[in-house]
């Protein structure tokens, strides 16, 4: 009773201060030139709502989208993470992503302890989300759903350890396009009418190498004392634009060139609206690039083990619009940049299928640790559909020519037409090494109705997930999560010496043997004929007995022939 009254008191206290906003929106755009010369634009819209959503009677929605709020309270969702991605983040040439997502659709949800039938809640939830985001999430069923034991921890405020409340599914075949973007934009308080969201023009966003949009909902502490919770909705959108093809061979870019729009104002509902430009390469050598207009302030932070400098444009600062009415951030390279200084990311991975023919095959995953002197463990999660029958006894993990024994291994074998394979391993990666993980599989022949419409295109295998605490080269200060820009705060970092990275490998495309789809009737008829031949010949032998054939007077044909012969005058038969 006392425990309940304290948050209630706080709530009253919060309500008492009329000026304190019960919900807040912060919008951010990060523009970062990638080592390969492309440009990554990352939008983030954070809506924070100081409300006990799961209590009954919440009926008034402000900035928080009602569709999602109702979903959370109805299905007792603790955390929801949905991403829809087109393309693949090339870690090797683009560097470590802020927030990577696997190709296709990914959905993972933590439910509250109060949920008894998790599977049913999951089924309903994925169907509703499918409707909200116009995505094929209704194709999520037991054959592509898993419950990882270690790879996915709650990102928000939670102390749950019961991993049965977690459900994870990936649809690697999902194609993301405008119809998914529009409902996503509609969830924003300003829609695409004002603020940073005016840049979200579908014909530009999908003319890109990589497009990923995501929705993350999680409970967070309302304040430092953490007595009550707030709900946070993060909508992120990452797009990698090929500057070469847009800018006719030049690597200079501007907002207008990329999005065919400029920024004129912040979203009126937003309490913060900022554009960050990554100008870290500036201090490597003497003045490589130049940002126009000159930023009013800069921000320095250690992000993912690297020191980064950002030029900051605060759209709420009226000084920004003093010179011109609109903000068109431009970046100019002062001299042609040589792309030779591609710094290898500390952790990256690649995956491929080997073998030939349609009977067996092998999945190989190569994981690179390019840290020069630190070894660190990674958690690898593999989800393989049932029709690729994995043989776990063929699992080999080789590092530097020696066998590397995983310190934790969780394998859940597949069940035909019911459940996929789930393999989770904790592998120690020695410093500066390549680890090769191989496992063999056998391809199943499916029923003809189980093949996808284009069966010879192949079947997708969802990407494997690597989660790791990567040791940082430079010491990072523990920063205030609320104040720091962008995604540094999504994954809680334990201390300053390491940072959390989640990577996804490529999805795989595997061919299966196919039956001939045009002849079900023929097959049914022919096989039944063979069975009938057996039945017939045995029936004959079982029911009849041998008799001596008496020479008969002949059949009708013979008699007719004899009549004709008699007429012709030739000897009878």
């Amino acid at each position, binding site marked *: 009773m006392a425990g309940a009254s304290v948050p209630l008191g706080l709530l009253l206290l919060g309500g008492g201060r009329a000026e304190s906003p019960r919900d807040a929106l912060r919008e951010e755009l990060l523009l970062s030139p990638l080592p390969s010369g492309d440009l990554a634009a990352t939008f983030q819209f954070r809506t924070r709502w100081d409300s006990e959503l799961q209590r009954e009677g919440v009926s008034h929605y402000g900035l928080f989208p009602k569709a999602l709020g109702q979903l959370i309270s109805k299905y007792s969702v603790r955390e929801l993470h949905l991403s829809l991605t087109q393309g693949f983040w090339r870690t090797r040439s683009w560097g470590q992503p802020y927030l990577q997502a696997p190709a296709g659709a990914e959905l993972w949800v933590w439910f509250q302890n109060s949920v008894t039938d998790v599977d049913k809640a999951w089924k309903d939830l994925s169907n509703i989300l499918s409707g909200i985001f116009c995505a094929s999430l209704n194709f999520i069923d037991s054959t592509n759903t898993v419950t990882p034991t270690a790879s996915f921890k709650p990102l928000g405020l939670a102390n749950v350890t019961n991993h049965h409340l977690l459900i994870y599914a990936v649809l690697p075949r999902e194609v993301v396009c405008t119809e998914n973007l529009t409902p996503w934009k509609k969830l924003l308080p300003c829609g695409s009418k004002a603020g940073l969201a005016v840049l979200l023009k579908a014909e530009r966003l999908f003319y890109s190498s990589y497009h990923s949009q995501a929705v993350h909902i999680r409970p967070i502490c309302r304040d430092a004392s953490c007595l009550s919770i707030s709900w946070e909705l993060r909508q992120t959108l990452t797009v990698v634009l090929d500057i070469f093809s847009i800018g006719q061979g030049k690597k200079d870019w501007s907002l207008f060139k990329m999005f065919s729009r400029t920024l004129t104002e912040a979203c009126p509902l937003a309490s913060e609206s900022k554009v960050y430009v990554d100008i870290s390469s500036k201090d490597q050598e003497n003045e490589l690039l130049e940002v126009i207009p000159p930023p009013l302030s800069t921000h320095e932070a250690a992000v993912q083990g690297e020191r980064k400098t950002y030029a900051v444009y605060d759209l709420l600062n009226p000084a920004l619009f003093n010179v011109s009415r609109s903000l068109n951030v431009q970046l100019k390279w002062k001299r042609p940049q040589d792309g030779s200084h591609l710094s290898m990311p500390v952790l990256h991975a690649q995956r491929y299928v080997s073998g*030939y*023919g*349609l*009977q*067996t095959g092998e999945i190989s995953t190569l994981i690179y640790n390019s840290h020069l002197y630190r070894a660190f463990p990674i958690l690898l999660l593999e989800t393989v559909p*049932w029709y690729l*029958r*994995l*043989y*776990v*006894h063929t699992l080999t993990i080789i590092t530097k020519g020696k066998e590397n024994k995983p310190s934790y*291994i969780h*394998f*859940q*074998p*597949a*069940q*035909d*037409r019911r459940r996929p*394979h789930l393999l989770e391993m904790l592998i120690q990666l020695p410093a500066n090494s390549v680890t090769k993980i191989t496992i063999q599989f*056998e391809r*199943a*022949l*499916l*029923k*003809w*109705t189980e093949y996808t419409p284009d069966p010879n295109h192949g079947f997708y295998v969802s990407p494997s997930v690597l989660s790791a605490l990567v040791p940082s080269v430079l010491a990072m200060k523990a920063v205030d999560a609320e104040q720091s820009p962008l995604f540094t705060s999504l994954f809680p970092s334990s201390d300053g010496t390491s940072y959390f990275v989640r990577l996804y490998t490529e999805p795989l495309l595997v061919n299966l*043997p*196919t*039956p*001939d789809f045009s*002849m*079900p009737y023929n*097959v*049914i008829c*022919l*096989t039944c004929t*063979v*069975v009938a*031949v*057996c*039945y017939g*010949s*045995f029936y*004959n*032998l*079982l029911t*009849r*007995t*041998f*008799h*001596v*054939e*008496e*020479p008969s007077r002949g059949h009708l044909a013979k008699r007719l022939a004899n009549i004709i012969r008699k007429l012709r005058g030739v000897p009878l038969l």
Partner: protein
Amino acid sequence: MAAPLVLVLLVAVTVRAVLYRSSLAVFISERVEVASPLNAWKRVVEGLALLDLGVSPYSGDVFHETPLIIYLFHFLIEYAELVFMGTLKRSLSPYLPFLVFLLLLFSLVQFKKQKLLIELDQYAPDVAELIRTPMEMNYIPFKVALFYLLNPYTVMSCVAMSTCAINNTIIAFFILATIKGSAFLSAIFLALATYQSLYPLTLFAPALLYLLQRQFIPVKMKSKDFWVYAVQYAFLYLGSLVVIICLSFFLLNSWDFIPSVYGFILSVPDLTPNIGLFWYFFAEMFEHFSLFFVCVFQINVFFYTIPLAVKLKEHPIFFMFVQIAIISIFKSYPTVGDIALYMAFLPLWSHLYRFLRNIFILSCVLIVCSLLFPVLWHLWIYAGSANSNFYYAITLTFNMGQILLISDYFYAFLRREYYLTHGLYLTGKDGTEAMLVLK
């Protein structure tokens, strides 16, 4: 007699050892004709690996052996590691001799069985030509050994280390026990065979008929002795089956193996191509008829038992042969090892040779199909220049050949019976040679 047999054994062991050591071993062990989902050695190793990981082998759909088999191999590996100071580790090659040994054992069993059969073969000597001379019969055991041990099908399934060899051994022990007249052992081995692959339960009828014949109890519905003996045998059989299944339950501490082994056999979820009739039929089946046809095809295997029992009640051994053949043709996951089992019986019926109608054509069909299996598989799976219909066509032809072969033997058997009672040279009323027809 012993010297040639030893020679055959040596040749058989050498052939297997050479093939096992050669590069062909991997090729053979991956052949779908040799290793089915039920008995592939790769799946046994997988089951052991799962057991080592602390996962129940039956929680997935890869392992379908019975619990006794997995614990047998588990024990063997533990023991071997103990003996060889852990140097063996994952190398499982030492179990090859084990499987060969089983096969040899099988042939010896067959051998003994034949000897007993000779004494049993007592036809009324109407027609001298049709009776087998003791000289001929003397060579039958040797021929059976030859047929089984040097049959390429057996060699292949041994080199692939298919656990089919174990099933065949159990069935062989069952036949031996039956012929020796030991109802108790016969029931135990029949229960083991049933436990292993379910279908041998139809062999209950021929075994019972044979045991009754040995006891000189007439098969009559009104006879009290008949019923008493039948109930006794059935009780022994069911009792040992229950004991074995309970033993498995206590080993595993769950009933998971029942759906995973018997459900898997009966409902045919795995459509990996094999030499049988099920895989393509159910891959192409319309979903709402699937259950109906699964039932029809499974009933088909058991369907022939009662009519055959009525027709062949005086000849239980021939009945057993026909029944084993029917099982190996119509079971849901047949392999060449199953075919080798009934083919080992063929020398037993060498006296039917003169009445067989199509033996030459059928032998050619079977040989050509066996050679075409890998060719068309390669064209479909690896070269991509053929499709599944090519392989399917060969399985159809192969099964048709087997069916006609068995019915030809059945026909010849019935015809010989007729001649034995009516004389070999039948004449019609007008003194000309008469025609014999089935009516």
